[in-house]
């Protein structure tokens, strides 16, 4: 019981540390592309630790095994890259200075989100509306 309590407390402290680090990074880092990278620590490690702490707490101390937490973790891990991608894409379209500093894309066709298709009609599938 004491070991379980120590594990829960340690996981909670780890989670709080990473949540704090993510938010400090969000405030302190210089521009959006670097700021984008800080809250991912809060999402994966911070929330992950708190959720595992809750799983351990309810399994070992309350005697109830619940898997809702794992569902939340799975959902957050699936959606975090999508939101990061959307924010970065919106930033690229709004900020010309960042878009001009991008390295050339492989294949010479330019960046898919910024430039036109170099060979329209080369792909067999129909283009979107």
């Amino acid at each position, binding site marked *: 019981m004491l070991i379980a*309590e*120590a594990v*829960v*407390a*340690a996981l*909670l*402290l780890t*989670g*709080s*540390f990473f*949540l*704090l680090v*993510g*938010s*400090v990074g*969000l*405030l302190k880092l210089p521009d*959006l592309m670097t*700021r*984008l990278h800080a*809250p991912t620590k*809060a*999402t994966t490690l*911070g*929330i992950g630790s*708190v*959720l595992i*702490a*809750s799983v351990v*707490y*309810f399994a070992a101390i*309350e005697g*109830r095994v*619940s898997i*809702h*937490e794992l*569902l*939340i973790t799975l*959902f*957050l891990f699936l*959606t975090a890259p*999508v*939101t990061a991608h*959307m*924010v970065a*894409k*919106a*930033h690229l*379209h*709004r*900020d010309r200075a960042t878009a001009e500093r991008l390295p050339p894309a492989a294949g010479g066709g330019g960046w898919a989100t910024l430039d036109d298709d170099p060979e329209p009609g080369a792909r067999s599938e129909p283009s979107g509306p």
Partner: protein
Amino acid sequence: MIELALTITYAAVGVSLLLNLVRLARGPDPTDRILALDTMVINAIALIMLLGIAQHTTLLFEAAMLFAMVGFVTTVAFCRFLLRGDVIE
């Protein structure tokens, strides 16, 4: 021991929410504000989970799940609006 850890974690999450709020108010670009809101949702989920542990109830986890879903949809909708000028075309 758990009570002390919970108190420290509450404080850390509260400070994190304040820092996010500063970024939300200051953020030079709308994308920064979207990112700050997304991080606030993450911290709010952590707060709900901590409340669930403190009150010995698993009832709040559904609320955390719904909050995660709503936060994701909101972020994507905001980005979509910035990109296309419309949410659903």
